[in-house]
């Protein structure tokens, strides 16, 4: 019986990729908290993870070599725009508190995935050594 690494690591590998993309988006929102007309963006983690597990990249596929290459939207698909809670004069839709909370939560969940992954690696190592 062989050890399948992709099965051993479970969902956490894809989760980490999507989490890091999401942290990029949330950090971008925080960085642009004072930029006029900036619209806050985020990805739906659950839907993105389901798409990643189903093996869909979330982007357009080129079925012919002559097709113009469309930049891949990256893991998690095209980001969505956040619905602002209150309008602002400069057209910016970033709510600093909301973004901060989401960024911290996302970082924590990233850490959790890392912890699960190290546990899996520990288990694999034990299995290989047979101690």
């Amino acid at each position, binding site marked *: 019986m062989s050890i399948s690494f992709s099965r051993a690591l479970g969902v956490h590998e894809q989760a980490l990729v999507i989490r890091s993309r999401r942290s990029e988006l949330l950090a971008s929102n925080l960085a642009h908290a004072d930029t006029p007309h900036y619209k806050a963006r985020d990805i739906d983690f659950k839907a993105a993870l389901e798409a990643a597990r189903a093996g869909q990249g979330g982007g357009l596929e080129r079925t012919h070599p002559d097709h113009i290459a469309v930049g891949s939207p*990256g893991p998690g698909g095209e980001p969505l725009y956040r619905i602002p809670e209150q309008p602002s004069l400069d057209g910016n839709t970033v709510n600093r508190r909301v973004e901060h909370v989401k960024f911290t939560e996302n970082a924590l969940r990233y850490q959790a995935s*890392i912890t699960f992954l190290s546990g899996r690696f520990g288990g694999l190592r034990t299995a290989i050594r047979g101690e």
Partner: protein
Amino acid sequence: MGLLNLFDLAGSAMSAQSVRINTVASNLANAEVASASPEAAYRAREPVFTAVLDEFGEHPESARVTVADIVESDAPVRQRYAPHHPLADEKGFIYLPNVNVVEEMANMISAARSYQSNVEVLNTSKQLLLNTLRLGQ
């Protein structure tokens, strides 16, 4: 790697916010500088931020923050009657900058908070990256 882009992003936001703090410092420092005519008077400055897309970047959403322009306020300058002032014009008026000190203080606090939250983002992503590097050890 998404987390490495964060360093560029948060760094650009921090430098933009420090430009903002610089203009606040300049406005506050020049708040009481008198001049002989309304045209020569110092005017409050404020930076305008914009998002610049990195065309070679992997993801278009990691747009960095840059200072598009530094605009001068077009509020009227303050006029004060001071006939004994060496810079007073023939009617005895001197002209003082249109700097609103209360506004500048609020602006400074807002800039400092934004700077702090970007430092926080940097620290968090550094921690995440280090933990990822140590994965499986």
